[in-house]
């Protein structure tokens, strides 16, 4: 992710060679029974070739809709404004058929739930080889060989045996490996992952993350990894974007954002993770719940839940700006770092109340 500078929101600077995917002021409006909501609100983000970017946020923050907007797979009635530029081509301007051609060949998806993502009445092998047959024109036998090779690449022993299995004969981890093989089948440049490990056990999750790391490094594929779990993102991704109520509120390199969050929401999210090491602590909740999207708070959308909000937070306009060294934050404390809330000892704040 290249720091998107402040005023290049027009998306008219021509193709940027370094950025594989460039989102500019991307806004997705969804109709609901009670009025239109902006599920994704003016998000600008660059994804470099071969880099892994994590998008983190709570349920309903718009992270999955953002992925679906890149794919053009939005619910009926959704309206997209802004620009989605992939490899120099403006995707939003393409007809569905042209767009499908780009997606099938160059952008792949790994869905969240490995239990429902495969067709239950077809053997898994042909489901993998379908992509290469359609997009690369491979003959049946060549596509089969390709699928078996891919199954081997994602760490499945007896690949030719698994090729003939039905999804219900495989465990959750195996199915997720099959889905990764399927995503790799057309040699994509970009893989979009929508919480691919949330439905898995920690042990399997670790293996899948290691696998994704290995295949992306080996093939130089870029990755967008959507998750609510900052810890998972920190293991896999180079860069991170934090979303809250449809807006991108902080971006930067994963290591820097985790070591020194520059948005109060990011820090609250980090503190809610259960620690594995160190003293045993009580869970630290963010408190409150995300805002009603039909009735958003003024100013910073996080301020009603924010422990370090100031009166001006309720009125200042949203401003995602550079806060130094390629980092962006929309928080008033972005430049100076997030202070501890008043009357809150630093030690207690760090670890919650000790048990």
């Amino acid at each position: 992710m290249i720091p998107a500078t402040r005023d290049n929101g027009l998306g008219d600077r021509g193709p940027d060679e370094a950025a594989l995917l460039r989102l500019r002021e991307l806004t997705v409006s969804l109709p609901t029974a009670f009025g239109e909501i902006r599920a994704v609100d003016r998000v600008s983000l660059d994804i470099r070739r071969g880099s892994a970017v994590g998008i983190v946020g709570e349920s309903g923050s718009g992270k999955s809709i953002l992925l679906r907007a890149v794919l053009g797979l939005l619910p009926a009635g959704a309206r997209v404004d802004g620009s989605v530029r992939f490899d120099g081509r403006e995707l939003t301007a393409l007809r569905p058929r042209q767009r499908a051609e780009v997606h099938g060949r160059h952008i792949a998806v790994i869905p969240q739930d490995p239990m429902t993502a495969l067709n239950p009445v077809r053997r898994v092998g042909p489901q993998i080889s379908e992509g290469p047959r359609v997009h690369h024109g491979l003959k049946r036998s060549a596509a089969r060989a390709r699928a078996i090779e891919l199954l081997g690449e994602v760490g499945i022993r007896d690949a030719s045996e698994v090729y003939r299995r039905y999804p219900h004969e495989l465990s959750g981890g195996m199915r997720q490996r099959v889905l990764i093989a399927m995503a790799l089948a057309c040699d994509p440049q970009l893989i979009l992952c929508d919480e691919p490990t949330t439905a898995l056990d920690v042990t399997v999750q670790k293996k899948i993350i290691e696998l994704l790391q290995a295949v992306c490094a080996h093939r130089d594929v870029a990755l967008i990894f959507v998750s609510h779990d900052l810890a998972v993102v920190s293991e896999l991704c180079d860069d991170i974007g934090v979303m809250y109520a449809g807006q991108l509120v902080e971006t930067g390199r994963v290591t820097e954002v985790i070591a020194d969050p520059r948005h109060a929401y990011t820090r609250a999210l980090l503190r809610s993770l259960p620690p594995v090491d160190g003293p045993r602590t009580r869970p630290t909740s963010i408190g409150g719940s995300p805002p009603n999207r039909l009735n958003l708070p003024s100013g910073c959308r996080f301020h009603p839940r924010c422990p370090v909000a100031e009166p001006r937070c309720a009125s200042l306009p949203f401003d995602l700006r550079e806060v130094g060294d390629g980092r962006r934050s929309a928080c008033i404390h972005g430049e100076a770092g997030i202070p501890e809330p008043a009357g809150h000892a630093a030690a207690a704040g760090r670890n919650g109340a000790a048990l």
Partner: protein
Amino acid sequence: MSTDQDVEAAEVPVIDVRNVRVTFPRRHGGGDPGGRRGRLVALDGVSLSVARGECVGVVGESGCGKSTLVRTIVGLQKPDSGDVMVDGRAIPTISDRAQRRRLQLVFQDPFSALNPVLRIGTMLGELLRVHRLVPRRDIRARCGELLESVGLSLDYLDAYPHALSGGQRQRVSIARALALQPSVLLADEVVSALDVSVQADILNLLIRLHEELGLTILFISHNLAVVRQLCDRVFVMNAGRVVESGPTERVFAEPAHSYTRTLLDSIPRIDRRW
């Protein structure tokens, strides 16, 4: 929680699982290691006890037998051999309503656990009525108390489940379990389907119920970090067996079994410098 339980001797464990073995017939295929020919061994001599007022965790990955253990404890699965005692008595049968009440479950998926066509108040009220726990005229008030005890306002009495978030539904599921004043709350992966921030809310709720009401909790999870925040004691299961048990802090600090170490190493870590 209720007075009739207080008279029981404190030494009798609320849940006492002794050397329980559960097997399932296996169909063709299925290469499960550790299985015997023809039968899949889901629980292989599992013993576990939970004292009154304790909060005990069971951890292990999918397929290790956690959920079979829960099903066996509540009497939905008959063990091949071994005993399960609840409050010092054999596990209640399906027809024994008063006994069955002693064990209440909260499930993993808050979206499928609630009846979508019943308002929350109706659902809670039905339980109280069927089990004759409060006089009819007090039912609605009691439902309100239950919701308040899990941190939801009275407005939710008239709400349908579809209007609730995952965390709110899980609170309702916990209120439903509490309605019957159980001896033990069996929580089967109750936070796994929730966002990390909502997980913290639900864990804090369980800790509060445990500390303030003395609720006994058996907490099943695959995530050791979560178990650590909640439970005093932990049992680690692998392939149908308890491979390690002890105080949570001890198991975390010096895991004795290699499988426990594998589990601990699998948890994604972040560098906590803030």
